[in-house]
Each structure stands twice: as structure tokens, then as C-alpha cells.
């Protein structure tokens, strides 16, 4: 049943977001602390144990892979609802700040990747 896959995905997401909220309130900040990361952990753990212990079946799996595949269109929709004007209107400093920070961060990607073997 395709809904089983979606249900598993939903449970992981909700548990992760809940844990993230709890972590956030623990630190006293109004933000979700790593909820998505925790949810991904859960799903990865499940998907690796599902293969060895029991299987959810091909069709149930489609419930998860559909959402994984629809991800890029969702990102496109996310891009289409950004406040692009706000970013450009923020003035020179916001733009300069953004460019400098992004450029330097890009430079460090290969440095850290290669350094931390």
C-alpha cells in the first residue's frame, strides 16, 4: 500500500521536527534545532534495517520515492516565492556581504573536504 510508505515518511518527519522543537526550547531559542536532520537519521536508520529485517514492499516504497523525486519541483516553487526584491533592495551592503561570504565559503569546501580525511 502506497500510503504505508508515506506514513513511515510522515512519522519520521514529525518525530524529527518534534525532537528539533524540544531541543530548541531546551536551548531557549525559538527555532527548530536540527529537526530535519534527526528525521533524516530516522529514515536512513529505518531504510537500512528495513532491508535486512523486513521489507515494506515495492509499492509502499513508491510512497517515499515519490516525495524524494518531487523534491526538485518543490525547490522550484520555493524559489518562486522568495523575496527577491527584498534581497536586491537591501542595498549595496547586503549584496556585498552576501557575495563575499558565499565566495569565501565556496573556497573552503575543497579545503576542508581534502584536509579532514
Amino acid at each position: 500500500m502506497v500510503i504505508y510508505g508515506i506514513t513511515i515518511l510522515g512519522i519520521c518527519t514529525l518525530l524529527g521536527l518534534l525532537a528539533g522543537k524540544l531541543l530548541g526550547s531546551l536551548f531557549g531559542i525559538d527555532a527548530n534545532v536540527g529537526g530535519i536532520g534527526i528525521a533524516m537519521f530516522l529514515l536512513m536508520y529505518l531504510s537500512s534495517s528495513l532491508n535486512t529485517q523486513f521489507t515494506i514492499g515495492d509499492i509502499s516504497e513508491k510512497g517515499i520515492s515519490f516525495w524524494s523525486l518531487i523534491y526538485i519541483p518543490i525547490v522550484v516553487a520555493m524559489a518562486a516565492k522568495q523575496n527577491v526584491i527584498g534581497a536586491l533592495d537591501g542595498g549595496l551592503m547586503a549584496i556585498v556581504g552576501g557575495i563575499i561570504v558565499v565566495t569565501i565559503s565556496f573556497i573552503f569546501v575543497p579545503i576542508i573536504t581534502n584536509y579532514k580525511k
Partner: protein
Amino acid sequence: MELFKEVLIQNSLITAFVFVGLIVYIAYLISEKLTRGKFHGSALAIILGLICAYIAGVFTNGEKGVSDIAILSGVGLLGGSMLRDFAIVATAYGAKFSDLKASGAAGIFSLFFGVTLSFIFGALVAILFGYDDPRSITTIGAGTVTFVVGPITGSALGADSEIIALSIAAGLVKSILVMTVTPLVAKSIGLNNPKSAMVFGGLMGTNSGVAAGLAAVDPKLVPYGAMTATFYTAVGCLFVPSIFFFLVDTIY
């Protein structure tokens, strides 16, 4: 015409699917015909999305891109955090635990390094532009961490709303740059394996930027980058208004 509009508005999520589908189709068409596949279709789709958001912003004076247009309000739901998070989690299905373990240390290091790096340079830019009170400098630096950390820091420190708006703008610029530039530089920074994706997520941190940037490079890398990026804003929210502000305050 009114009837047509009514149907589109009442079924806004479906309208959004159609809208996004058309954008993706046009993007792949341009990618194939004009760049012979050199410029990836999904990267172009994201850029087209941003352009639509810009145009919509000009006409509606809103802040939510095309979703401020009534018939496209569903795009707000489709591209909102609920479905985005759901889909990001789904990408973890099939990602390998072993890859995560192997690059975990580099990922965590890049997370703390990334927040510090962004903050320092953001704060330096603020100083260069003539800001000299520690609250403003810290808030602007926080904005270059992410556009969530900016306002959280700003309101915690009691910065002016102008400064907070500026910090959000700096964060937005960062996010949009990461979305658009990542596919262009992916090759030269070696962004083609789970490890570099984790480091990338940790260094950039902007969820939307990392998610979109990696999606345009290779969807298989998304879970790894998203994994570290998801902790980035939290690290920023913890350190910037506390330790970093303290340091800036001491120096100034």
C-alpha cells in the same frame, strides 16, 4: 475569464503543480536547445523561479514572490516549509549510513567553521560600511549566517528594525547566490561526493540555498548537504547572540 480564475484559485495547489511543471519544462527546453545540456535544467528552473518571483514582486509589492498573485497562491504551499521538509526527509531514503559516518567529522567541523566564517566576514563588511556599534555589527554578521539567525539575533540584542531588515536582506542574497552559483562552481570545488556535499552544507548553511544548489548539481547529494545544513541555523542562533556578540562587544 472570471470562472477560469475561480477554478484556479479554488484548486490552488493543483494550479501550483501545473505552474511549476511548466517552469521546469521551459527550463529543460532552454537547457537542451540553447546550452545543449551544459547548463543543467533544474538549475535553470530554479533561476526561472527566482525571476518569476522578482517580476511578481514588482507587480504586487509583496514579499512572497508569485504566491502573492491570487491564482498562484498554491505555490506558497507547495514551496513552503511543510512540503519542503517532507521532501528533504524523503531524499534520505536510500542514502548510506556508512557515507555519513565516514564524513561525519568533516561535516561537523565545517558546521562550526562555516558559522564562524560567515559571521566574521559579514561583521567585517558591516564595519567597512561604517557601522560602529556592536549590536548592529553583530546583527548584520548574523544575517550573513542565515536570514533566520539575523532577525533572531537582532531582536535578542534589541537592534534597530532597519538593521534587522538589512540582515534579512544579506541572508536572502546569500541564499539566492548559493542557489544559482552552486551548479556553476560545483566542478571546480569538487562537489561530487557525499563528503564534499556534507562540508558544503555545513559551510553554506542556508537551507533553501543548499537544498536548491545541490538539487541542481546532483539530487543524490541532497540528503548529505541537507543533513549538515539543518543544524547550521541552530548553531548560529546559539552562538551569534551570545559568544559572538560578547566578542564583538569586547573588541569594540
